[in-house]
C-alpha cells in the first residue's frame, strides 16, 4: 500500500564536489607530502551546490537540464552510489535504478545466468526471480536465446533483456536515466507503457532524459537543474517550456 503524501525522496541542502585527481601513484603523493604539500594535487569541481528537493510517494518527476547540470550526479546520490559532501539524502523503501542497464551483465554467462545475477544485484531474492523469470523472458522477447551466452546477443537483445530485468525488480522508487532510448520503436512503446503502468500502480518515478516530449507524457512534475542548482520546480510542461526558451536564448 503506497499512500500518496509520504515523502519518498528527501534531499536537503545537498552539495557534491568532485576532486579531479591528477595523480594515481603513491610516489607522487609522497613527494607532494615531503615538499610540504605545496601546490595542489587536484582540481575541484562543484557538481551540485545546494539542492533541496522532496519527492512524495507516487509522484512522477522529470529531472531536466543541459549536459553537465548535475542530473546524473543527483541520481547517483539518491541511489547511494555516491555520498554527498554536504546536506542529507534520504529515501524510503527500496530504490532501484534503471541507470545504465546491463551494468551487471557478464558477457560469458548465458542470458539465464545473467537474469539471476542482475536480478540479485538489483536487490531481488532468489524466490522473486524464480517467480518472475518467465515474465522477464517474455517481456524481453529473447525467447529461445535465453540459454545463449550474452556476448552473442545483438545490442537490441542485450538492452531488452537488461531493461526487462530492471522493470521486474519491483522497487518502491524507480530511478531512470536515459533509458527510454532502448531498442526499436515497438519495444520503446512497450517500455513506455510499462513505465506508465508502474506509475499507475503508485510507484515513484524519477526520470532523467533529454527527450523532452517523452518525459512530458510520462511525468507530472518537472525539476530544472542548471550548474548544480534547482532553478525551477513545477508542472512538467511549464518546466519543459522554460528549458526550451533558455536553450533558444543561448
Amino acid at each position: 500500500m503506497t499512500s500518496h503524501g509520504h515523502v519518498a525522496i528527501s534531499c536537503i541542502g545537498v552539495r557534491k564536489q568532485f576532486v579531479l585527481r591528477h595523480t594515481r601513484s603513491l610516489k607522487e603523493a609522497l613527494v607532494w607530502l615531503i615538499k610540504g604539500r605545496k601546490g595542489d594535487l587536484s582540481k575541484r569541481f562543484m557538481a551540485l551546490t545546494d539542492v533541496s528537493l522532496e519527492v512524495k510517494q507516487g509522484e512522477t518527476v522529470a529531472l531536466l537540464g543541459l549536459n553537465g547540470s548535475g542530473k546524473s550526479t543527483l541520481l547517483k546520490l539518491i541511489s547511494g552510489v555516491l555520498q554527498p559532501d554536504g546536506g542529507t539524502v534520504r529515501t524510503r523503501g527500496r530504490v532501484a535504478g534503471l541507470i545504465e542497464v546491463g551494468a551487471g551483465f557478464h558477457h560469458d554467462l548465458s542470458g539465464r545466468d545473467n537474469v539471476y545475477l542482475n536480478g540479485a544485484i538489483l536487490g531481488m531474492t532468489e524466490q522473486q526471480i524464480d517467480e518472475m523469470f518467465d515474465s522477464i523472458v517474455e517481456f524481453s522477447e529473447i525467447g529461445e536465446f535465453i540459454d545463449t551466452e550474452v556476448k552473442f546477443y545483438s545490442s537490441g537483445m542485450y538492452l531488452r533483456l537488461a531493461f526487462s530485468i530492471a522493470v521486474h525488480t519491483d522497487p518502491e522508487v524507480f530511478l531512470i536515466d536515459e533509458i527510454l532510448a532502448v531498442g526499436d520503436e515497438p519495444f520503446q512503446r512497450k517500455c513506455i507503457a510499462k513505465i506508465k503502468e508502474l506509475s499507475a500502480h503508485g510507484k515513484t518515478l524519477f526520470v532523467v532524459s533529454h527527450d523532452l516530449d517523452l518525459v512530458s507524457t510520462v511525468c507530472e512534475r518537472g525539476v530544472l537543474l542548471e550548474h548544480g542548482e534547482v532553478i525551477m520546480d513545477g508542472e512538467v510542461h511549464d518546466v519543459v517550456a522554460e528549458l526550451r526558451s533558455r536553450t533558444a536564448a543561448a
Partner: protein
Amino acid sequence: MARQMDQLIKPGMGRGLLDIYGDRFLLKLLVRKEIKIRYRGSVLGLMWSYVKPLMQFLIYFIALGIFLNLERGTPNYAIYLFSGIVLVNFFTESLSNATRSIVDNRDLIRKIYLPRELFPAATVWVSAAHFLPQLLVLIAACLVVGWTPSILQLLAAILIFAMMAVLATGLGLMFGAVNVYFRDSENIVDMIVMVVTWASPVLYVWTMVERVMGPWYWVYQLNPITTAVEVFHWAFWEPTLKADQMVSDTMPPDLLGFWLPVSLLISVAILFLGQLMFRRLSVHFAQEL
C-alpha cells in the same frame, strides 16, 4: 522490509561485512560466476586447479627435496611440502584476487549500490572452491602413506582454514580499498605473495630458522601464516610418521597453547582493521574509480 518502508534512510550506508549475510544469495551467484568464467574456453577447465599446484609441488620437491637434500632430514617430505603449499596457495590467491576485486568490478560499483565488501568476500570463497580439490589430493596422499589423525588435529585444520580466510579477507579489504586510490597496492600485494611462501616453514623446517634467529625466533613465529602452516603440518604430516621415523621437534614449543591463540587474535584484529579502513575509503569508491 517493513521496517524500511516506514522510515527514511540514507542510501548507500551499509553495515559492512554484516550485510553480506543478508546478501548471501548474491554472494553465491558472484562466486558461481567467478568459478564459471575463470577457466572459460579452456579444455582442461577446473583441472587447472589441480595441475598448477602439482607442478609447483614438483618443482619444489625436485629442487629442494632432492637436489638440496631436504628430504633426508624430513621423513615424508612430500607430504610436509604439499600440506604447506596448498594452505599458502589458498591465502595468496585470496589476497591477490581480493586486492584486485574492487578495481575489477568498477563498472558495477560506479553504477549500482551494493555492499562493496561482497567483492573481496566473493574472491575468498572462490579461492576456497579451488582449495578444496587440492585438499582432497593432500588427504588422498596422506592416506596412502598411512595417516592417522586425531579428532583434535582435524578440528585444528578446520580452524586454521577459517583463520586463513579471515586473515585474507582482512588484508584483502585493506589492500583492495587502497588499490582504488593507489594502484601501487596490487604491486605491494604481489610482493607479499612472493615472500609469504618463504617467510613461513613451507619448504624447510622451523628448527633451521631457530638455529639462525636464536632468541629472536618469536618474531618469525609472530606471523600468523607461520603458525597456520605449522598447525597444518601437525594435522596432516605428523600423523603420517611411523614410530621409527619420529622427529624430535616436529612443532615449536607452545604452538597450540600460545601461538595459535595469538595468531587467531592477530587475524581477527586485522579483519576489524580492514573493515574499518574499507568503510572509511569506500565512501568515495564510485567517484575515484
